[in-house]
């Protein structure tokens, strides 16, 4: 239960920080920028929940393998967001 709360809090905080960051940097964000960002955060929740789920099932190897595989996609997603959504206009 604590893990789910923590993941929820992290996700909420991430979104708030992103909104705050965009406001401070006066970024021009189109609606689909926000959509991709929110989907990215949902995906990150999915990855974290997946890792927690496998650990709580008593399958640490599955947590590492599946967490690793899906995590890589999440990292790529994050990098792309940073490169093309949040970084491009901040210059």
């Amino acid at each position: 239960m604590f893990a789910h709360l923590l993941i929820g809090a992290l996700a909420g905080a991430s979104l708030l920080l992103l909104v705050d960051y965009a406001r401070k940097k006066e970024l021009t964000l189109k609606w689909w920028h926000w959509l991709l960002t929110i989907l990215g955060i949902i995906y990150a929740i999915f990855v974290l929940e997946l890792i927690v789920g496998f650990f709580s099932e008593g399958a640490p190897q599955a947590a590492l393998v599946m967490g690793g595989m899906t995590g890589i996609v999440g990292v790529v997603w994050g990098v792309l967001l940073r490169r093309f959504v949040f970084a491009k206009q901040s210059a």
Partner: protein
Amino acid sequence: MSKQSKISRRDFLKLSSLAAFALPLTTKVGQLGNYDLIESKEKFGGFTIKTLKDDDPLFEFGPNYTRFDATNAILSRVWWDDEFNEKADATETVYEKNDPGYTQVDKALSAGAAYVAMYEGTDSSIGYLGLHKGLMGLDPKVNAPGQGPSFDGRWEHDHLTSEEVTAIVKKASLFLGASMVGVTDMNEKWLYSHYYDGFSQTRAPIKVTKVEKVELPEGQVSPEDAKPLIKAELEKMDGQEVKDLLIDVLENIDPSLLPSNAPSPSFVKAVPVSKFEGQAGQLVSNLPKLALGVIAEKLGLDIEIAEVDPGESAKPRYLEDGTLAIPETMNKVIVLAFEEDYDGIESAPTHLTVAITQDGYSKMAITGGSLAQFIRKLGYNAIPCGNNTNISVPMAIEAGLGENGRSGMLITPKYGPRVRIAKVITDMPLENDKPIKFGVEEFCKSCMKCAELCPSQAISYEDKTMGSANISSNSDVLKWSSNPEKCWEGWVANGSGCGICIRVCPFNKPESWLHDVTRIMIGAESGSIDSLLVNLDDAGGYGKKEPNMVFWDSDKFIHIKD
């Protein structure tokens, strides 16, 4: 560069409409065609399920198929086949005393779990293939206080549809301890030709026997015999008279005693008279016993519609030569499946797994016997069966509980192969379930985990075949054919039972959203991603060769130590 630091009202509306569109779409996707994804979670554990149509073939038989003789089943052969026993006993054991899973605690748990199954020799009828004894006896051993053994008359259920009657029996089955329940017709092909009782060294045929017609006292007739009499009277009347009579009957019967689909008097009034012309036969055939009695009275027929005690020939019994006689009227089979503990199966092939298996046999005895008694007290006959009398796996498949896997076991959607099966044969009129498909056959073609990890190599790597490895497996029916002799040798080597094929099966997964994703992909029966899923299963550390001794350490039931 325009500044836009927050989501505009317009953007918010776009997002909302996208979500509003996506949610029902994702909900509906699972309901396309024959698939039933969303509503099947409780029963099917997240799989996309297809029910087979009546003309879809379930099993393919060869021209020389004969009913299997239970004397040749491996659990019978260990009682009489000295040559085989000698060979099996020479198998080298692979465990040490006090190895994990072989401690005194593990063996004690196994003994405790087996207690009901073994009590008064009932194990001979639950785990083995012999006589119906004890809790699984043909007759009730005891009766509840105030309830004698005599025939109390049949349960009046004319006011219920057959689906509702079936649902009541299924609810009773689940209440009495079954994890899954399904109904199918008695298929004589799956009836053993003979039973073999190791304890008493008895071998005798199992036969379906004729039921003699019972003569009632003069003036009394059975509902079936009353129908032609009433029909003859109705045929003498014109349409208006039949209509008036039907309205009169419907207005004078307590509506709660009528089937839920019975027409109301006002509905009948609205039907044109022409619809009642020449329809006496159809009208009578659909009427419940209660309405027949009222109509007979209105027609002035001097008959009493009586419940019929079907007599001895309608009861299951052992004949003098030991033959098990199953009356032809006992043409329904209620198939029960019992979930086995996940953590316990993880410890396969140790004594802990035997505890899980024996717990299943005890539950089979408790629930099978109790359900049979419930049915008897409703005025019908019932034979509770464990492994005996008819072959469990194909009966369970026909009853819609799952599919046949490479290991030869029943693969259920919710528990995979982690179930024990019991049956109750009855003459109670019940509605059949439809057989299901959820991708097992396709998946098992790619997955060889049970075959690869079987220590005695008893499971086939080949395609389905009509052949059999030895006399302990039936031939002339298309299936993945395993080798029961090798399987038993594996048991001897383990000094207990085995269950590795259950443990390593990718369908054996706890209920979780994580595995639901895989279940949906398997249920799609694409075949092309099955190998990938098997590789992911391996990579995730599932289904290893070594047991996962988590039973005593997991927090299931109770936390033991920090």
